[in-house]
Structures are given as C-alpha cells and as structure tokens.
C-alpha cells in the first residue's frame, strides 16, 4: 500500500502553507492574488510571456536549494509541494527600507506605469542572488521574459547595474538563511506520494519514478505536467479541464543528466536552465538557441522532455536534437523502448506515445570529428519568440571532401519537426561546395510545403530554409560576417 499524503505543503514567503483543497487548474497567480490577497504580482498576459507575475520559486535538487524566477500565471499550485515561493511582498517591510533591487529601480527612474515593475524586481532579484555583478548581456538574458511598454528598458538596465553598489548579496535573507530554509523544505519532502482531489479533479505528485510509472498505468489518460509552460496555457487560454493531473515535481530522478563517452542523456524533467551548462559544454553550437527559448522564467520551468512530448511543430529543441541523432526513451510500467526522436513525431498533434506511457529521457550522441553542426532559429523578434523557421544541420565531410552523411531537420516547415530527406539525398556523395549546395537547394521544394500564418508566409519560410543551408555552408568555409554579431551590448549611457 502506497503511503499517501493528501495535502500540498509549501513555504510562502515566511509562512508554511498547507492546502487540502487545490483544484487541478489552480494557478499560483490566482492563489496569491485572490486567495491570499498578495497583489504585488500582476496578471499581464496569463500565458507566461510578459513576466508581470514573476515570483521566485526555491526548490531542492539533491539537497541544494536554488531560487529561480517563474511565471506565476501558468504555474500550478499543486506543483509547488515542497517549494519556497517568494513574492515581491517579501522584499521590503511596510515602511521599512527598500530592498537594494527596489532602491536601484527607484534611483534610476526605472518605473513609469509600474505595472510590470514587481515582475522586473523579482527577475532582477533572482539574477542578483546568483550573479551580483552581471554584464549587460546577462541582464538582458535575465529580462527576456519581462515586457515593459513604457521605459524602453534603458533605465531598468541602469538599475540592474547599480544594485550591488546599494547592497551586499550576503546580507539578503534568502542567501544568509538558505541553509535553514533548505532544511525546512527538506522536512516537507516526506517521500510520500501526494494525492488530492476526488475523481475528476485528481492531482497526483508521484513519490518516485517507479511510482510515476505506476500512477500513469493506473491513469493512462492523465495529463503529465512537468514545467507547465505549455499545459498552463491549456488552462489559462483554452479553459480546458486537465484532470487527472500528474505533476513531476518530486521526481529528482527525472532531473538528472548522465554523461557517457558517446553522448549525454537528459532526464525528461530536466529544465532548460538545468540542462544549459552540460548541453552547451558539449554542444557549443546550441548555446544561442538555448538562450532564446522563451524567457528566463520559461527556461526555469520548462523541460526538454516536455518540449518533445507535446510534439509542437515549432518546438525549439527538436530540429537540433534530430540533427544530432537524438533518441528518446519511453517508459510504460516497467517496460521501456527507445526510438529515434524523428520517429516520435508522427503527424501534427500526434506523437508515438501510448496511453500510460511517458517520455523518460533523451539521449544526444556527440557529433563525430568530421561532423559540422549548426542550428539557426529565425523569428520575428530575436528573443522570446517562437520560430518562424528553425533549421539544424549536421553534415559529415569525408576525407575526400565529399558529404558522407547529413541530417537536416527543420521546425516550422511542416506539421511536425521534419527532416529534409531529399535535400540530404542530393548532398550525399557530393563535394562540399557551393555548387553542391545550390543543386541541393532546389530539393527543399520537394521536402516541404510550409504554411502561411502570422509568423511568416510560406514563401518566406521556403526562402529562409534554403538560405539557412547557404549560411551553414558559408560558415563551414570559415566566412566572416555571415551572421549578425549578437555579442555583448557596448554601453548604456549614464543618465
């Protein structure tokens, strides 16, 4: 008999919250604003794009407590079991001195209408704790998920640069008290499965990976929620009922990264942020792509496993992972199967995942020495946007200068992430030259018939797909000025 707890427990600022009655669709933002009357966090979009609702969530992984910015609007309350939620209300006491982050924002005139401001404060707070003296580039990266319509951001960047001249990180309670808070959170993690709600409203947090497999076999139609950056919108935008829900919050096993001599294996619950260091170490070409997935809040919540499992034709990671020859391991009960990632995507909205089955891990092999690899994401806005086209290229050039093998995969060009099989075939055996490229390019028309939508027209998608192969070729030839240098911002003037 499984040991079951029927409440959700987490720390909210300086208080323990224990809830027996949590709806499957209850968001953290509504909980804060409506149930707790904590109205510092605002609703700007209810889809995790504007950041006005940003709060910090501290969670343990293998005993280490880390605070990360998240979008409260698409975060489910039930997923917070064992976490520490920190809202803007915790930063300064009424009539007390402002927190250094807040003081910096006031001093630099960084708020105008003020509606986005609590979200910016929380994002900058999270950054400052990890990186007290960030570069402009690091600040911009931390603020990719925060929209401001008034200031033009210049004053906010000035504020971010000024924080450390106002206060010491070491004096911040979340830093100085971290050990104590970690112990409190550890005590909340009692290793039990959490089950709340009755039939039709059931929410389950399995205690372990095996428990998860068991729960899912018993509830094969359950909605699996990892980061909720997608499922959150099913609720906030489409008002879908998602129960029964299985949250992966307690599955530390799914948050592990394994290295073997031939590749890297990401547990399906590894967030983009958690995956960043190891992924970029082994695949430096993924660094820009990774930095452009959502905003920081989305990368802190969202998982590679979720990006794959939900099968979006415009997901950020699949084209690159397909080009790298990634495989996905699915599990049902005790049985596992592994298939090439590209085979997982059957059709628009249809993946090769059976009821009761879940994505357990993704293995990405290291490219060979002769392999050239690159991935390019093209979007209307550079950061925090969805691809109009995303192209990934891995080409193996033999000693004879000919293409021994190639994998070319695109997002945004079909109903699923899809390989350009005809282009690959056209390249095979050809000398790696602009002649070969120009010949192969016409084959794109046979591989893809992209759609026109609000992100891009079919013509643009097709043209860009071709041009990305040209870009890839130029880069393999060491050409300079082939891409806009997105390096560090030079300067922000003093005001």
């Amino acid at each position, binding site marked *: 008999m499984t040991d079951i707890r029927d409440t959700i427990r987490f720390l909210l600022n300086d208080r323990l919250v224990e809830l027996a009655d949590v709806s499957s669709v209850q968001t953290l933002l509504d909980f804060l604003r409506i149930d707790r009357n904590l109205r510092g966090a605002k609703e700007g979009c209810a889809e995790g*794009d504007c950041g006005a609702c940003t709060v910090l969530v501290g969670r343990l992984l293998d005993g280490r407590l880390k605070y990360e910015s998240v979008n409260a609007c698409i975060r489910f309350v039930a997923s917070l079991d064992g976490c520490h939620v920190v809202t803007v209300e915790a930063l300064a006491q009424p009539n007390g001195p402002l927190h250094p982050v807040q003081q910096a924002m006031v001093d630099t005139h960084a708020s*105008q*209408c003020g509606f986005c401001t609590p979200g910016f404060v929380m994002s900058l707070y999270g950054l400052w704790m990890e990186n007290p003296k960030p570069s402009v580039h690091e600040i911009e990266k931390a603020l990719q998920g925060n*929209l401001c319509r008034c200031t*033009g951001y210049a004053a906010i960047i000035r504020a971010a640069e000024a924080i450390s001249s106002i206060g010491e990180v070491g004096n911040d309670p979340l830093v100085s008290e971290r050990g104590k808070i970690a112990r409190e959170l550890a005590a909340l993690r009692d290793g039990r499965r959490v089950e709340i709600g009755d039939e039709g409203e059931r929410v389950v947090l399995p205690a372990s990976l095996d428990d998860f497999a068991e729960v899912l076999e018993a509830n094969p139609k359950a909605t699996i929620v990892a980061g909720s950056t997608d499922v959150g919108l099913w609720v906030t935008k489409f008002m879908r009922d998602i129960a029964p829900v299985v949250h992966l919050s307690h599955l530390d096993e799914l948050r592990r990264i394994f290295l073997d001599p031939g590749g890297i294996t990401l547990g399906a619950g590894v967030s983009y942020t958690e995956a960043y260091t190891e992924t970029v170490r082994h695949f430096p070409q993924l660094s820009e792509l990774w930095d452009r997935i959502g905003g920081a809040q989305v990368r802190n919540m969202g998982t590679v496993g979720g990006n794959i499992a939900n099968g979006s034709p415009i997901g950020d990671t699949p084209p690159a992972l397909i080009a790298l020859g990634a495989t996905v391991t699915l599990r049902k009960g005790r049985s596992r199967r592994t298939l090439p990632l590209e085979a997982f995507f059957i059709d628009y909205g249809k993946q090769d995942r059976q009821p009761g089955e879940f994505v357990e891990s993704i293995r990405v092999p290291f490219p060979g020495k002769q392999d050239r690899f690159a991935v*390019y994401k*093209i979007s209307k806005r550079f950061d925090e946007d969805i691809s109009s086209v995303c192209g990934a290229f891995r080409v193996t050039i033999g000693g004879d200068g000919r293409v021994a093998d190639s994998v070319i995969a695109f997002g945004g060009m079909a109903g699923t992430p899809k390989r350009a099989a005809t282009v690959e075939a056209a390249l095979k055996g050809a000398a790696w030259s602009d002649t070969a490229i120009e010949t192969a390019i016409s084959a794109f028309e046979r591989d893809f018939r992209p759609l026109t939508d609000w992100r891009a027209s079919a013509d643009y998608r097709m043209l*860009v797909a071709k041009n990305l192969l040209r870009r890839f070729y130029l880069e393999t030839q060491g050409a300079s000025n082939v891409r806009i240098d997105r390096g560090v911002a030079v300067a922000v003037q003093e005001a």
Partner: protein
Amino acid sequence: MNVMQPIDHIRGGVHERERHESGHKHVTGTAEYIDDIPEPAGTLHGYLGLSERAHAEILSIDFGAVSASPGVVGILTADDIPGENDVSPAHKHDDPVFATGKVEFHGQPIFAVIATTRDAARRAAAKAKVEYRDLPHVTDVLEAEAANYPLVVDPLKLERGDIEAGFTKAKHVVEGEMRIGGQDHFYLEGHISFALPGEDDEVTVFASTQHPSETQHMVAQVLGVASNAVTVNVRRMGGAFGGKETQANLFAAVAALAARKYRRAVKLRPDRDDDMIATGKRHDFHVGYKIGFDDDGRIEAVDAVFAARCGFSADLSGPVTDRALFHADNCYFYPNARLRSRPLKTNTVSNTAFRGFGGPQGMVGGERMIEDIAYALGKDPLDIRKLNFYGGEGRNLTPYHQTVEDNIIGRIIEELEASSDYAARRQAVLAFNRGSQVIKRGIALTPVKFGISFTKTEYNQAGALVHVYTDGSIQLNHGGTEMGQGLYTKVAQVVADEFQVDIDRIKVTATSTGKVPNTSATAASSGSDLNGMAAANAAQQIKGRLIQFAAERYGVSEADVAFEPNTVRIGAERLPFAELIKSAYAVRIQLSAAGFYKTPKIHWDRAEGRGRPFYYYAYGASCSEVSVDTLTGEYRVERTDIIHDVGRSLNPALDLGQVEGAFIQGMGWLTTEELWWDAKGRLRTHAPSTYKIPLASDRPRVFNVRLADWSVNREETIRRSKAVGEPPFMLGISVLEAISMAAASVAGYRIPPRIDAPATPERVLMAIERMRAAASRADGDK
C-alpha cells in the same frame, strides 16, 4: 514672528530630477491598480461574450448552457440597457455596447455574463451558442476602397499652392505607395472597470481610463441617468498610450450596468487575448503619393492620399486621420500640396488613439517621399531633408496654413550630426557594405516636428483643485490621469514651486470626476501643459489671498510678501509656511481653489482646412545604424543617438524616460509589431506570444539619448516646458530608414527599397529579393 535661516531651494521644485511619485510603490508592489482594490463582500465579476464572425447577422442566441454554468448570476444584453446602447465618443451612435442584429467585427461584444467569480463568468461566456448568417466582410483598406465601403467620418483635405503648376514645373516626378501597419497598445495592465452601486441612481466606477469625464458621460448615457449620478475615479493606469482614451468606456458602462442591476459591486476585466481582439488599435494606413522635385531634390509639389483602416465605427478616426495629414509635411516645406484622408470603414475593431494619434503614420509617409527623392537622385537622404526644411523667406507655411514660428530643427540636426558622427559613419557604412556579402549596414538620421494641442479646440482646457490644510499640507487634484508618464509628479512639482514648499508636503489624489469636472482626455501630450497650468492657477489664487492677508496683517505692501523655500518672507521677516496657513485660517481666509486654464492662440476651421491648430511644435531627431542579414532579413539596431526638445524640462529624469520609451515603442511599431488578420477576418496576433513588442535585448546596442537642454518654449507654457508624450515616438523612424538603406545597398542605392511597415524580417528579406531582382534587370538592360 521668527527669524529663520533661509534655505537655497525646495525639494522637488520644477526642473528638478524628481523621482516618480509612485516609484517606491511600484517597486514594492503596493501601487494599487484597479484589480488590486480590495473587493467588498459579494463582489460579482463580468465577462464579455464576443462575436466569432467578422460580419454577420445574429439569427439567434442560446444562453441555456451559459445560465446553467456554475456561479452564473445573470446575463446582460442590449435589452438590459435602460439608456442608450451606444458609447460612440464621436456621438455618431455607431458604437453599441452590445451588438444587436448584426456583428461588424470578429471580437465585437454581444453580451456579458455576470457570475460569482471571474473564472466562472469567463467559462460560462464561452458556452453561448450564437447562430450567425455570414455577410461579406472586408478587413483591408484597399479592399474596402474596392468594395466601396463607406467612410466613417468626412474626410479632410489640406491644400495650398497650385499643385498642377508644381508638378508641371518639377523636373522629376515620382509616384509610389506604402502600407503602414497598425499597432496594439500592449499596456501591461489590460482594460478593467470596477463599479459600485450607490444610493438612488448613483454609481461609482473605478476605471482604467485616460478620459474620466467621457467615461462618466458614457456610463450616464448607457444607464439613462444624469452625469451627476456617476463618479469615475482613476488613481493610475498600468499604461495606456491612447488605448484607454475611448476604449475604457464600454468596460465601465458594462460594469456599471451590472452594478445597477444586481446592486452589487461588479468587476469586469477581459483576458489579454480578448482585450487585444475587442479593443481598438493604431490605424493601419495605405499612402498613395506623387511628389515633384528639382535636380537638387528640392520639393515642388506633393499630392498624397492617406487611407486608414478605421474599423467598424468612427471612434476617433476623424481627428486621427486629420493629424496624419497635419504631420505628412514633418519638417519640410511643400510649396504646393494636396493631402487627403480616406477614413475607411472595415470589418475590424474600431481603431482609436495611439501615441502620436495618426501623426506617426503621416510622418512615415512624408519621410518615405524624402527617401524616394534621395534614391532617385542617388543622394544621402539627409541632404534632401536639410534642403527641404522649413525656414527662409516664404518657406514657413504648412499645408494647413499655420506658420511655423518656433523652428529649431536646424540646430538639433546640426548637433546630432556632430554628436553621432553621422558623416563619417555613413562613409564607414558604405565601405563596410562594399566588403560584406551577407551582412549589410544602414544608417539614417531623421527629424521630428510634432504639433502640440488637441486639434479640437474645445479640448484645450483643464481644471485643478488645490486644498491647503491647516497643518500646511497640500492636497492636489487635477483632471489629468496618471498612466506612468509622471504627470502627477510634474504637476506636484509645479505646485511645490508655486508655494515654494518641499514636494513631500503635497499629496496628489486620484483623478475623479467628482473633484474636477468636464475634463479632457489625458492625451495629445497635453497632460502637463494643461493641468500644470490649471494647478498653478489654483495655487496662485490661494497665494494671492495669502499675500493680501499677510500684507494687511503685518502692514507691509503686497510686493513685500514673497514665497521663499518653505517660508514666507513678509517684509524683513520670515514665517514658516504652515504658520502662515494657520493664522490665515483663523481669520477665515479660503484655503482652497479651483484652477482653470485654456490654451491661447489656437483655432481651426476643418471645412476650410485652415487655421492654427497647434500652439507650438516639439522637435527632435534620431540617428540609427543597423545591421541586416540579407539571407534571413534579421536585423539589429547597433546604435541610436537622439536629441530631443522638451523646452525647459519640468523634470529631466522623467522626460528622458519618456524619450527613451517612446523611441523603443516607435521602433517596435515599425519593426516587429505586426497585426495579422486571417481570411475569416480574425486577428491572429492577439497576445504577447504572437504580437512582439521590443524586449530589453532589442534596445540599440549603443543608445545615447539627450535632451536639447538649451531649448525654451517661446510660448508661455508651464515654466516654458514642452509636451513630451508623443513627439519622441516618431524618433523610431530612423530605424526603418536605416534598414531601408541596408536593403538599398544590394542594388547600389539607386532603387528605393520601399519596405512596408512593420519591417519584419520577412518584409526586409522580401524587399532585398526585390532589390536584387531589380538590380539584375537593370544590369540586363545595360
């Protein structure tokens, strides 16, 4: 009477870099927006049911599932409206609260569900079954012209000189056209209204509105009660940008309607997607133009038609399209001009005010003509600009017959050319482009001249209310609304300066129709010009009484009474401000005053297209350099330099923030912010996931912004300052033109790229493809 040590100056007087009065509340999350107000017990929540068709007859509505939905208290339709089912700000009766009989755009409100929670109301609203019979619909301006769709208001024509003679004389004549996209305001706080029923027919509405008086009048009209029964309050908005000038009225009216009907507090807040679908935006324009010029590029004649997608109703489209024409000349003298507007009806949401109010579209059109001249003649567009600036004998009359009297664009451009190192950098860009195959660069320096005043003269008035309490504290209220621009701060600075007291002594209270009546919208950049003057007037009235009192009490002449920092000097002695107030109260001096202001000199005859619609002009210029990827159309702004004129700034810190923010917003409008309707007439870019406003990382990599600190308004505005809200928005045009230059580089800068706005990576790449094709055709012809 004490002898006090005088201090140099007060804290927070005019021209100081005073921080935003709510800054400390913004950062702590304690600044209260309407959704943050604690709800009284029993508060109900409304949600609008929107049309799912662009143009259709409503055959029937089945509310069965709605009523049966959990938490539903009731449903409101047009039948529940005791007054008029109309919130047309133009009083054209074309803006129903709830559609009846037919719907005219996808997203038009048809009904509202009232329930115990917002979630319950929203879920229930989705359950209505509306049966439609589709009618043909038109979403695009040119399609509307082709389909003979009506105009929503009478068009405007501005005409001066002899257009035919001008074209005959001109050695070169170029014709062209341009599409300019609209823009969603994307205020971070969406629309919201919260209504509380009162006694008798009274209702109080907390509305996120830039125009509390109009909201009050519209609520009264819908409820069928007198205006005196309705009080509208707004402490602050979470951004507005014009999007809450008229668009708040419907939300306020529905909340008030429900509050009256159910005798409970009612809050109405749409989801972001519904806000974007159901409320108006910046007008999209199509500009068709013909321009004549000589070999040097000097303009001889301009003939242009500005057609606007107005949406299904008039709203503010008349004055918006008028202002487009008023700004089609930007800084340039047109010897012969004919400018016409076409405010076209379409089956889209009714477009409305947005920062610049049509001016930006007019100016983009005017600047496109300058570009065309430059590319036709193979010259630097800046040379063409300078050649055509207003100035010199007989070259100061606008197409609307107002004489430009305060022209400072020459000095601004000269300073910006120097500080941005324009000439050398343009040469460097040209050299870079010769050596770079894929990445191309572009640089552009563009000017701005923007007319200040509401073109409807009667709106140029304002009121304020100042109370001095017996402890010497001051409460300030005025008709302007705070949407982040810092109006409350600036007006408080004015009052602090008048009384010569520290700004901490002054509390600004929420804008309320109960305190200052018959106000104008906080719009047209007029906030501090109008309300600053009205507040100064109120303070001066009180001061006048205090001076008279002090002179009599201490037996000095009135000229010997002066307000000095935190004290009043009476003859040779000084008295603390609060002490003077206390003694004035004791002898029954009135310590409260209502101030008033109306802008002088302005007049406008629309039928004749003549007058002086603007009290003065604000000027500015920006220089932007971009990199463009010719394989993908992606781009990045490498550097922008700005000099902007705010006259003698009331608050340089706030003004700098306005300039920086407006530039980025203008850049967004012209680059990544794209409104996209599908074949069914549905707006598909209706949330931040699909509608892309600039991020921090979209800022120019180098961003140098400076106020023209030497500028002083030659007109007698409040402390000789100038309006700042809208003018800097158009500084963003330099980015579009710099992208244009980069695209032109692939065809030797001799063919105008004519990139439509917004210049998304797609439009940029497609323009580059066109340029390449045109260049190779030209080569083939040789």
